[in-house]
């Protein structure tokens, strides 16, 4: 991930700058098809249970996108993203209760306020590197979680905190008028998530993306090339916080009732493991991670399998990614499928009489 042992592996696929045109096109087509399926087909096909799970997938795809950006593109590891998500959700919930602003405005504000908070914390933290940065984010996340446990999430009460412990009928956090139903809100969150992915793609294709790539390769070299490393690292931090804040806003409307117990510090740890498993060098990794993190537990729950098996799987997965497959699932699965395809082609070729031996492309 961040060091020389995997740098070459990372360099091969972290290549939005050098992607062949064909692959860009294929990616664009695949994303468009997926988006259409997600928006049109899925809400009709799935039960409410799975639609809600898919809304969570959209939320966590954004969170994973932010963390993947930090880890894979810039080489900053944060162990506190769930705390950032909680901050975004808190801000959004407070605004939704206090004001009648349109939903997109609230999301934007939640993103911007979370971004400000993240940048404020990031500014001193960026002086630290690698291990120490990761551990300090873990400490800060622990702190934020405790503050949120004490202040609680807004539940329609008054005052700055908006929490009233003696409320009997807690009002639900409102949803946008066009997306009041569960399928409607699901579509809404998919659109927001797609916009966030676009935002990141724009960043990666332009100046910041190039600067981040340079910083990831070698910070001294980037510095020597005239790149303001602090500025761009902070930019990455701000962007990731913004996206996570927006995700928090979407989450607030999705669950409608927020409790601090839903954002434990250990979730940040699981999140990092799953994001690494999904793959941090490809944007697809964020989607894979979100599916692993939210859809898989829903499936297992339905099948009556304990979610603990998943925790165990994530643990094994992260060790496997770190030791042998730095690209994660998003990188490994297509590669393995291609290998399997070649193998099958080879077998088929051998079975056909007169076919050249050894089949498949070299």
């Amino acid at each position, binding site marked *: *991930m961040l060091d020389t*042992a995997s740098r070459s592996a990372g360099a091969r696929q972290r290549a939005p700058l050098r992607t062949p045109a064909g692959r860009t096109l294929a990616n664009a087509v695949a994303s468009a098809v997926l988006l259409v399926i997600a928006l049109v087909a899925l809400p009709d096909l799935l039960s409410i249970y799975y639609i809600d799970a898919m809304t969570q997938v959209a939320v966590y795809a954004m969170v994973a996108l932010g963390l993947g950006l930090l880890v894979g593109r810039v080489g900053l590891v944060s162990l506190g993203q769930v705390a950032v998500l909680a901050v975004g959700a808190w801000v959004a919930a407070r605004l939704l209760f206090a004001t009648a602003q349109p939903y997109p405005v609230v999301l934007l504000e939640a993103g911007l306020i979370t971004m400000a908070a993240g940048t404020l914390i990031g500014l001193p933290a960026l002086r630290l590197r690698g291990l120490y940065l990761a551990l300090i984010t873990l400490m800060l996340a622990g702190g934020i979680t405790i503050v949120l446990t004490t202040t609680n999430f807004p539940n329609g009460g008054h005052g700055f905190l908006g929490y009233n412990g003696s409320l009997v009928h807690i009002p639900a956090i409102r949803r946008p008028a066009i997306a009041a139903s569960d399928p409607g809100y699901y579509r809404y969150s998919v659109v927001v998530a797609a916009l966030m992915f676009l935002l990141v793609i724009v960043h990666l294709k332009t100046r910041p993306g190039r600067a981040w790539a340079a910083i990831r390769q070698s910070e001294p070299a980037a510095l020597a090339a005239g790149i303001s490393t602090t500025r761009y690292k902070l930019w990455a931090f701000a962007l990731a916080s913004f996206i996570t804040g927006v995700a928090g806003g979407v989450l607030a409307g999705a669950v409608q009732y927020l409790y601090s117990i839903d954002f434990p510090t250990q979730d940040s740890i699981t999140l990092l493991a799953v994001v690494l498993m999904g793959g941090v060098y490809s944007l697809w990794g964020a989607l894979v991670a979100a599916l692993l993190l939210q859809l898989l537990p829903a499936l297992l729950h339905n099948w009556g399998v304990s979610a603990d098996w998943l925790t*165990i799987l994530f*643990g094994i997965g992260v060790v496997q990614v770190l030791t042998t497959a730095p690209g994660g699932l998003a990188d490994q699965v297509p590669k393995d499928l291609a290998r399997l395809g070649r193998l099958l082609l080879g077998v088929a070729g051998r079975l056909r009489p007169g076919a050249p031996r050894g089949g498949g492309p070299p």
Partner: protein
Amino acid sequence: MPSWADFQPFIVSGLALGGVYALSGVGMVVLYQATGVVYLAFGAVGAMGALIAWSLINAGTPEWLAWLVCVLFGGGVTLAYGMVFGPPLARRDPLVKAVATLGLTLVLFGLMDLLWTTNGGQSRAITLPTDNGGFTVGQIQVTWTQVIGLAAGIAIVVVTEVFLRYTKPGTAMRAMANDREITATLGVPVRRVEAAAWFGCGVIAGAAGLLLADLVALDATTLTFLVISSLAAALIAQLRSIVLTFVAAIAIGLIHDLITPIQALSNYRDMTPFVLAAVALLVPARQQLLSQSREEA
């Protein structure tokens, strides 16, 4: 504002808690120095050891045997992890090594949740026989477990310092902390010394798990992530000085418990380790030291 008398009992519990934090912190510092691994599974290993001990005691095993199993489990799991994943990750960034131990944490955590389910809200507890005895200082009740907590902290500092300074494997560990390659060239059996460090760290994890299960709670989640608090002490000492780790741990334990009777701050007391660690890491003067640390070498 509470009176002095309100604070008194919390001094004792704070010292005991600090002692156990010190135990964990020192364990992590020693392993980091010897192998460059921040062992984030420390809490999970201790928690699982304690749960195994609990099950054994419930099944009628003599208590001393259950405790021994707990401590050996910690050592065994940690040694196994170090032997399997230590070498392939030896040349990687310290961050990668630390994140890999998170993998072990998740595996153990999942296993614990699976094997010792928390359905029905029944709570488990390990009570060491030392809970009952005790004495009073002034008007403060002190249990022997609390004494053991602090004593274990002090003992681990003294033993580790002596071990590192005067014994051969200790000297080898210090040499490896400086430069693994050169140490290997000089004929030190690097792998064996590392194995010793892994095992030692695991044994400490088991012992800390047992003590914390008694002093705090026997709960997989609590114990697993309590490692974050003990890590704070090690971080304040920059993962280097054992004595400083001890001092930081005692400070964290004391402040944490002394805040408890103050109404306005009581809810925030669990933030103590995080705040102290954040301040210690972010104070600019430290930056110089950190940037020269092992991770860059």
